[in-house]
């Protein structure tokens, strides 16, 4: 059930910050700077309604997006039901639903 995005056989696994285009990621962080406050505790993913039914992992998706790894992010985020449990639990008070909407908007045509 490994997450099938961010890398595949033909693409090297390394997150190459030197080569990744960080423009979108910078834009996303500029609009919702609180996303940088994520400490990766996993509460969002643990409580996730969609994550309990699929391989969707919000924490991983937004972290990869912040590193400039956009491929597949839109499709992954489409699994989210926007129910809002994660926002109610996030210990860092991140507007997770806003993050999802924003990334989808920014990467919709990626």
């Amino acid at each position, binding site marked *: *059930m490994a*997450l099938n995005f961010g890398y595949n056989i033909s693409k090297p696994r390394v997150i190459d910050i030197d080569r990744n285009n960080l423009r979108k990621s910078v834009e996303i962080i500029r609009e919702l700077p609180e996303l940088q406050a994520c*400490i*990766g*505790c*996993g*509460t*969002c*993913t*643990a*409580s*996730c309604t969609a*994550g*309990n039914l699929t391989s969707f*992992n919000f*924490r*991983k998706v937004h972290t990869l997006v912040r590193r400039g790894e956009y491929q597949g992010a839109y499709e992954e985020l489409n699994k989210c039901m926007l129910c809002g*449990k994660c926002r*109610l*639990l*996030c*210990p*860092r*008070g991140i507007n997770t639903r806003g993050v999802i909407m924003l990334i989808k908007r920014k990467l919709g045509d990626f």
Partner: protein
Amino acid sequence: MLKVAVIGGGIAGMQTALRLRELGIEPIIFERDKELGGKVRNWHLLFPTFTESEAVLLPLKNRVAREKIEVRLATEVREFDSTSVTLASGEKIVVEAVVVCTGFTIFDARVKDEYGYGIYDNVYTSVDIERMFVDGKFAHWRGEEPERIAILHCVGSRDEKVCQRHCSKVCCVTGVKQAIELKRRFPKADIFNFYMDIRMFGPGYEELYHTAQREYGIHFVRGRISEASPLMDGRVQIKAEDTLTGRPLRMSVDMFILLVGMRSNSENEHFARTADLRLADSGFMQPKDLFVNNVCSNEEGIFYAGTVTAPKSIGEVLNEASMAADRVAEYLKER
């Protein structure tokens, strides 16, 4: 002799009073409880050396008695300023200076509804566990030895959702200590500590962490538990993300322990208002600075010692208490 009020009779209050007496000042301790000792009284063994809490409390208490320090038990302070203390009874006592040693409040785990404390059986706080060790009785669901125990770090600490942004500092090492104690008590049990970050800041703490992993086989899972639900057989099912593998994790445990954090006393706000003192964002009292004046308040003649300004370990509290007494003496001399 010059009279100085010490508000709070925990370890900070007692140590401050003792040091004041050494400096030739007459302290008077006001304690809300019927007994001296504060929260340490409820603790069984202290990290990182598994020292009995009595080893800290008894010498302090005995010395307070021997020095014939005036102690007002079951006495609540309603208000104070740098020259007087007003008790709940209305009595006003004139003093030369005040040292505030009112400590902290333990976070009420019931606020975190999703962990089921006070709703399901077999959900405990770290405070409950200490009490069980003190009493030697484990109120367990079927009287059998637990096979699996989960300990959750950061309950009521580093959590915006309960307005507790600060780190309570001592819970991490307490979690490791309690894991070891539980393992000693229930050798067959598998113990899992769920953490966001492990902060081992003191001498011997990191070593204790190491010991827990190597000698006691405690499992450390990096992920914060999001919610717990009850099972038919009385066990508790917890949900977390195992962030190191990136997959959701589900587990049934016989005991679910919440490492509750230290929060500021709700009276701090009242004291700050009536005595013109500054509060930190966390609700703890704000010392004049965090360096050379870390035991002074923004008001002349009012001093702080111990966890009234921030979460601290016992050793740090005791050091600070001596420091506060020294600064009081200096203040009275220079005045």
